[in-house]
Structure formats: C-alpha cells, structure tokens
C-alpha cells in the first residue's frame, strides 16, 4: 500500500482543491489525523496562516508562518514505519518576501539544514535541497531529498537558525515512503536474461 502524504499549508480548506495524495494544513495542532496520517504543529498554532493565490500551483497557494523574531516551532509528521522516504518541500510565500529558516529532523537528529536565513521574494520557494525557485519553475524543477529514517518521527523545524526578520514559511511538504526494494532498483538490470548488478 503506497504511503504518499502531501501537506498544503494555507488558511481555509476550500481555498483550492488538493491533489489526491494531499491534505490541507490550517495551522492544525498535533495530533491531527487526516488523509491517513497523523501530523500537526507541536504545542501551539503557527503565528499566521494565509491564503495567497489561486493562480499558482495549488501546492503553493497558501502558507503557515513562524515569526523569526519569536520562538521556533516544529511541524511533525508521524511516519508509517522507519526506512526510506523521499521528501519534497516548498518554503516561501506566493505574495511576500520572507526569510527562511528550515531544518529537517529524524526525531531529534537534524539531518538537513535546508535553509538558514535564505531570503525569498514574493513568489519564490526553497525546495527540499535548498534551491530557491520561482512559483512557475517549482512544480517542474523542484528536487526531492532522500532519507532513511531511523525513527517514525519526521520534524520540520522552523525559525530556529539565523533569520531575525520576517517569517519562516511553509507552503507545501510531501513525504513518500519508498517502495520495498526501490533502493536497489537502479543498481539491478537484466542482461541476456541474467540479473546483473550495475
């Protein structure tokens, strides 16, 4: 059974229509269960939730923001199991300039500092590999990050690094469990009907 979970951060559920593997996040507090996954902002709601644009990709239509002058906040996703996952991210705001601090954690271990005080203009988004892309380019060009999780707790920590003005903003997060054996797929092939290792 595929386990692909997308989170579209915005202010109201009906602002846009989510894709089949996605649900909205309206500042939901952990634990919230929807779309087959338990998730949410830990302890308290984000500083703001906003609908921004219906003319961009639906995944970039809104945002949840953490004020960089205040305390950091964590968005938590309970994974279905430990193991291999790919992660997709859009951190930014379709309308306004922001400063992005985003880290990925496996339980309490930081495994990627995605953005540390990265300036984004309105309509720019940082992807999971830390590259800033326009709203027009992000849907086709954004890159995923692979991670073998040792725990079942994926945390996105916002506003805990160098940014001191504006907000650290999430627009979209997608987590996909790798299919069993997928990690070996690219390394194996058939040659004259014999299995070979590349």
């Amino acid at each position: 059974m595929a386990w692909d979970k997308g989170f579209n951060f915005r202010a109201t559920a009906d602002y846009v229509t989510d894709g089949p593997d996605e649900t909205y996040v309206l500042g939901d507090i952990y634990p919230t269960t929807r779309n087959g996954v338990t998730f949410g902002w830990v302890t308290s709601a984000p500083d703001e939730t906003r609908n921004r644009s219906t003319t961009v990709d639906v995944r970039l239509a809104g945002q949840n923001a953490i004020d960089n002058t205040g305390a950091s906040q964590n968005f938590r996703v309970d994974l279905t199991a430990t193991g291999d996952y790919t992660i997709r991210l859009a951190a930014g705001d379709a309308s306004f300039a922001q400063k992005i601090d985003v880290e990925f954690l496996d339980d309490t271990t930081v495994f990627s500092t995605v953005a540390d005080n990265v300036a984004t203009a309105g309509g720019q988004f940082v992807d999971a590999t830390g590259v800033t892309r326009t709203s027009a380019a992000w849907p086709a060009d954004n890159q995923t990050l692979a991670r073998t999780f040792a725990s079942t707790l994926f945390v996105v920590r916002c506003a805990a690094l160098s940014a001191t003005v504006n907000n650290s903003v999430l627009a979209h997060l997608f987590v996909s469990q790798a299919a069993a054996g997928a990690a070996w797929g690219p390394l194996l092939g058939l040659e004259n009907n014999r299995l070979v290792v590349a």
Partner: protein
Amino acid sequence: MATLEEYTLARDTVQNVEGLRRDMRRNAAGYKADRLSSRLSIAQLGQVMAQDASEYVRRLGWQDRVDTGALRLTLANGLAALGIPPTEVRAAVSELKTTATALRDAPKETAADIDAAADAVLATVAQHETVWN
C-alpha cells in the same frame, strides 16, 4: 491540586480524545464529499479510510498506555484537578475504539461501502459542541 506532570497528562488526554472525536467525524464527512466530487477514486478512498482507521487505533493506544500501571493514578489525579471523572474518559476511549475498529474492518470496495462506513462513524461517534465551529 495536581502536579505539572499530572496536569499535562490529563490535558494531553483531553486534547487527544476530543481531537480524535473531531477528526473522525470530519474525516467521515470528508469521505462522503470526496466520493461525491470524485476527487479520489473509490480505491484511493478505501486506502485512506483504512490508513485513518489504523491511525485512530494507534492514538487510542496512547490512552491505553497512560491508563494502566503507575501512570493510571497520575492521569486520574490530573483529571480530578480538571473535574473530569476517569470513567468518562474511559467511556469515550471505548466509544471511539469500537468505531475505529469497525471502520478498519469494514468493506471499502464500492461507493455504497464508502458511504456505509462513513455513515457508521457519524452515527456512533457523538458530536461534541465546540466554541469556535
């Protein structure tokens, strides 16, 4: 009076159980809406419903853990400080667990299955009033 640990355990219990009640009812209404709009196929809806049911059971498992052994008294003291009888919490957990298990085991192969399973959740999980919606 309660200690910080006792209060926290009780507060988290209320948030988990009442939040789960809200999630189960909203999701059940969502299944029917998604079925009508065809946003998700029947197969996709069935998969999401099964995954949701598993998550419900997992969240209720948290309550089983804190309502046994030494933590049971800790939770009871916290609930007492809030004026909530532990029996009311146990009844709510039992109510939700019965429904979650039924949802997990229900057939989800057809549109009629989807509606029947969603209706069963709405019929058996009582709606509690909230301040803001």
